[in-house]
Structure formats: C-alpha cells, structure tokens
C-alpha cells in the first residue's frame, strides 16, 4: 500500500514471451508445461537478480531466508491464495485458466508503482496526483 487505501497484489502474470527465462545466466528458470508458471531451480539460482530487472513488473524477489529468486509457481495449478480469497467471498484473486494464447497476460506484469497509480486514479481522481 504505497498510497493509503490502495492495496496491490503484486504477482507473476506469466507473460507470453517470458522475458525472465532467457535473462537467467544459469538457466535456473523454466516454464511448466502444465500450468505455464515459472519454475525456479533453487539449486541453480545464483541470486544475481537479473530476472527481477528483466521482468516488466519487477515481480520476482530474492527470499530473505535463502536469498534465492521467488516467482509464483501457481501452487502446481491450484493457487492457495485464490482459494482463501474465494472462500472468504472477496473474489479479489482469480486464477485465469486455459486459453493462454488469447489473454494478454503481459499487460498485467507491472511494477507496484504503476499499478498503484492506476488504481489510485480510479479511486481518488485528481487527488491521486498529490498522493503519488
């Protein structure tokens, strides 16, 4: 929440061209055939942070405990975060299934600053400018 009231989930959107994958100098990233999610091979990861820079939304991060890259793996296809959100009937998170070629996923790979700006303008109008 960079602006009061604007909470932004900041998660991997599975871009069609996966810019993070070729950015990895040690081939630690791969794409799951079943789910289309990025899989991180922690053994190979050298914590260089290149995938973070390559991602249009700077979505990956290095986990504080082992310093290895973290990218959403969709929990194997049935994401837990979506389950609790649906269970609580907030419906803020949604797993987009199937039809991968027809969805412009890359548009959703944005930095938290960009996402915040858009939502803040939606909620607050002109006032958002002052808050950013």
């Amino acid at each position, binding site marked *: *929440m*960079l*602006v*009061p*009231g604007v*909470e932004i989930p*900041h998660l991997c959107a599975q871009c069609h061209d996966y810019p993070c994958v070729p950015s990895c100098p040690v081939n630690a990233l791969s794409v799951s055939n079943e789910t289309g999610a990025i899989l991180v091979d922690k053994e190979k990861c050298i914590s*260089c*942070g290149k995938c*973070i820079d390559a991602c249009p939304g*700077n*979505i*990956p*991060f*290095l986990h*504080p*405990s082992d*310093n290895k890259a973290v990218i959403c793996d969709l929990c194997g296809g049935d994401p837990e975060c979506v389950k*609790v959100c649906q*269970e*609580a*009937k*907030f419906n*803020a998170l949604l797993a987009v299934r199937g039809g991968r070629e027809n969805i412009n996923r890359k548009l959703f790979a944005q*930095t*938290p600053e960009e996402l915040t700006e858009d939502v803040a303008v939606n*909620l*607050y*109008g*002109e*006032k958002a400018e*002052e*808050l*950013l």
Partner: protein
Amino acid sequence: MPRGYAGKFLEVDLSSEKIKDTTFDEEILRSYVGGRGLAAKVLWDRLGEKWQTVDPLGPENLFLALTGPLTAIYPGARICISGKSPQCNGIIGSTTSGEFPSELKCAGYDGVIVTGKARSPIYILVTDDGAEISDAKHVWGKESLETIRILTKEVREILEKKHPGVGKWKEPAFIYCGPAGEKMVRTAAVMQKVSHGAGYGGYGAVMGSKNLKALVAKGRKPLPDVASPGAVKILWREVDKQLSQRDRTWPSAWGTGYGGYDVGAKSSSEPVRNWQEEWHDEKSFGGPKFDFRYWVKRYWSDFNCSASCMKLAVIRTGPYKGTITDNPDYELQAYLGPNLGIFDPGKCIYLSALIDYLGFSGINGPNTLAFAAELYQRGILTKDDIGFELNWGDVESFEALARKIVRREGIGDILAEGTYRAALKISEMKRVDVTRYAVHVKGVEIGAHGTRSGQDFRPAGYACSVQCGDHTSGVYDAYEDMRMVFLDSAVICSFVDQELLWDFYRAVTGWNTTQEEWNRTLGHRIIHIQRAALLFGGPDLVWDPAIHDDNPPRYYEPLPSGPYKGKTTDRKTVDEMKKQYYESIGWDERGIPKSEVLKKLGLDDVDRALDKLRK
C-alpha cells in the same frame, strides 16, 4: 523465550540516543502477556514509586508500543500503546490496528519502549538489522497523508540502498503522531495508516513531548515460531472461516457505521449536540447514506484478517473534494456528526478525515469541540473568545476551531488540554461552573454510547473502569471484564470471534493458561496496577473515587427527546453497581484495592505503595 514472541523488545533512550534490546522473564510474560498487561507492569516497576510526580508530557514518562503473542498470528492484529496517560494520569492500554505490529514482529521485536526526549524531531526505523534514529525535521508539522507519502518513499529508498538487488520492497508500516500530538494536545492519538488511531489516553501527545514523530518498521523475517504449528494452522483456518463466512452483515459489509441507527434511533444513546440529546430522527444516518454515496471500497482489512470492517470513503466532487478516509466508523460518525449538530454524511466524512489528518483522537478531540460549541450556545464563550461564531452544524467553524487547537492559538490553547482540563480553566476564567457540560470520566472523554436510555451501556460501566471513558472497557463484573483485558494484552481485535481463543493461545505459546486462571487471577493483577496508578494520578490532577468514580453530570439529566424521553441514569443504581463492583474486584469501600487481595495476587509492591493512600 516462549513461543509466539519474537524474543526481544527494543528500548530507545532518546535523551542519550542509546538503543538496546530488552527481554522479560518467562514468568512475567506468562502473567502479563503483552500489550496492556505488560505495559502496566513495566510502567509500575519503573515509575510506580514516584508516580505522582511524573509529568506524562515530560522526558521521564515512557512511551510503549507493545504487541502480544497472538498479534499477527490470530486474525485481527493490533498494537497496544501505553505510558502514563496525559488525560487521566493513570495507565491506559490503547490499541490500534494496521500492519505495524506484524512488521515489528517480523523484524524481530515484540515491542518498543521509548524513554527520554530527543533534542530535535526524529523517527525510529526498525528493520531486520536493528533500529536506528533518523532525523524527522522534514515531516514535523505534516498532516497524515503527507507524512505517510514522504516516509514511505524515504524508507523504501533507504532499504533498497541497504539491500540492493533483492527486488521491490513492500512498503514499511508506521505509527506516528499528527500535528496535534506534536503540540502536545491531550486529545491527540497515535495514528496508524491514514485513519487508525489509538485514541484513548492521549498518547499522541506523549510522542510529541518526546519529539518522536514516528516509529517505522519493516521486517523480512518470518513471524515467530509457535508451540504447536499443526494445531495453530487448523485453528487459524477455523477462526478465519468464522470471520469470512459471517452472514455478510455487520461489520463485514457495513462497518460499524450501521450501528449508528441502532444506537442513535433505536436505543437512543448516541450523543447529539454535546450529549444534550441522545436521539435524532435522521433515519439511519449511519447507514446507506454513507455506503451508497461515498464508499469506493467495501471490503478492506488489515493483514491477516478477513473481518473487513474497514470501508474506504472518498468524496470526489463538491466543496469537500479530495477527502479520503476509512468508513467513518460509528464513533466518528456520532462524534463528528450529530454531536456537532451535523446530519450530512458528506460533512461528517470531511470532518472525520480532518480530525485524522490532524492526529486527534476521533472520540476525544471532537468531544472537546462539542463542549466548546455548547458553551457558545449558552453564551459562556463568545465570538470574541473564540474568534468566530461556533454554531451547531457549522463545518467551517469546527474545522477552524480544530486547527486553532492544533496551533494552540487563543482559546485553542485552553481546549488543547482536553475537555475536563479546559472546563476547569474556563470555569475559573468565566467564574461559572462549566464542568457540568464536560462529558468525560477522569479526564478521558467518553465513547459515543450513553447510559441514560438504559438500552446501551451499563449505568456504572464507565464510572468504575480503570480505562475511564473507554467504551471498549466498560465494567460489568470482575470475571467477564477480564476478556477485554486479555484481548488488549494478547493484543488482538475484539471484533474477531473468540470461541477458540484460549485453545489458540495455548497452541501458540505452549503455556497451560486457562480462561479461568486469567479471569480469576492474572487479569486482576493488571486491573489493580492500573487502578493504583489512577488513584495516585498527578501531577496536575488527582482523582477521589468518592467523587470521580462517577458518570459526568450530563448523564443524570433526563433525556429531553425520543422514545426514551424523560429517562435518565439512576444514581441509586449507579451507587449499588459501584458497590457491587468494588466488592467483586476486591477494592475497599473507598475504592482502594484491599491489602489482602493484593497480597494474594503477589502484588506486594502495589500494596505497600497504596498504604500511603489508605491512611
């Protein structure tokens, strides 16, 4: 260190700029838990002997921000703010919700204890790497939105610089004081997010007195280990299910604001024009009038909670354009609505946002505004005294007065001392007793729930409470009341279902504490310490239970309107309830905790200190 705790407390002496880690023995933690309980213990141990001489706004007072073992683990995380209260001169545990407590625990600290006074404005930054004191001159005087904007940006940059290349940092969390706190206004709150205040107690003023603008926390470590992770996982899921599967009425869908109709129109106990009335026929002022027009987000919660009692209210057009606030919740709807003679939801939102931006407590601050307006209505305060007319319902005047209080300008300087202290001063100034218009208990302005109709709060609920005017801690009996003491000590929210609370507590901490033990023994210790501090009071005001364990005079005037017209608080009932409560909690007929009771509870030091008052 027991489970559920991060393991250490941060202690900062601002005078010498020394920072160190402190721990407490397991026995103390098991007994006092955290939050309000531990704060009472720490305050009494350190200041008890000289309590009466400690100036709450002086460097010798402590500022405590403490979590508890359930904080951030049980849904509904809060942090408890305490110290010697500049309102009642006793100890009040005042809680506020937000992400600060979870960030603090993730950074490895269970709480922060601040002593001394900084030479110039500072803020304390707490991260995984420890704590540091940073300059805050650039945010001193800034209102909340601006403070949040500047500090969020600044701290993220500091963190990114310190740990480059690890990815984007989620924003840090703060507790801070607004301009009201900086000017040591006694009704100032400790703020969190944009509109969440720890209001009762006036601890914003304590922050201001220490030149402490904010505490900022960002932790990247995991939450503390729990004793039985498997059990906690199952229990958490159950509690969350209860929260998320509530029948989407109150407070999930509607916030506490819908209570306005229950309390205002149905049970007739909502303050109207400084409590001169407690009924209005503005149907459901607290309901759809806010919801349909102004809420842009209906489900909003703090970390780890699906209660979603927060609502995001925004005014997009008109004279109040650009106002952003939460809800407002019932208390603020009442205190910045009917109690100021305002029955327009847009105006109410505008004023409640303003009160938050300035860092007032949303109950205590507006109570003083309404008190001033009644004095104006009665001709005791005049246009010359105030500087402008102060008519009921006049938003611009109330805004001007609030700003005057924050600047401590003219009458504002007197009103900045809170309703009761201002009443004493104005009585002296005008040679007429105005304390009968002051709605407070022991210096703490009362929450928006009256006692006169008999449909809402109990007649002696506020009078005997060690938290004074706090509407969340009204007394009923010496057993049931301990529930709130526990929630304030484990520091969780009272809106979260509590059927599994004790199982949860044992699974987190690994202790065998039972509800019975808490309600009969442990909770009582905290109440007695708070009571002792309150009885000593000082240095400016001292309370006599025979006089001050009572409702404000207004609560004995008959209700002039509404379905309960003519009803009032029965003094005989109050006296009876008071007597019963004294007996059940173990206080003598003068309201002083009995020696044998204290000795049995192992509070020998409190007992010895109270000997002075027993003579």
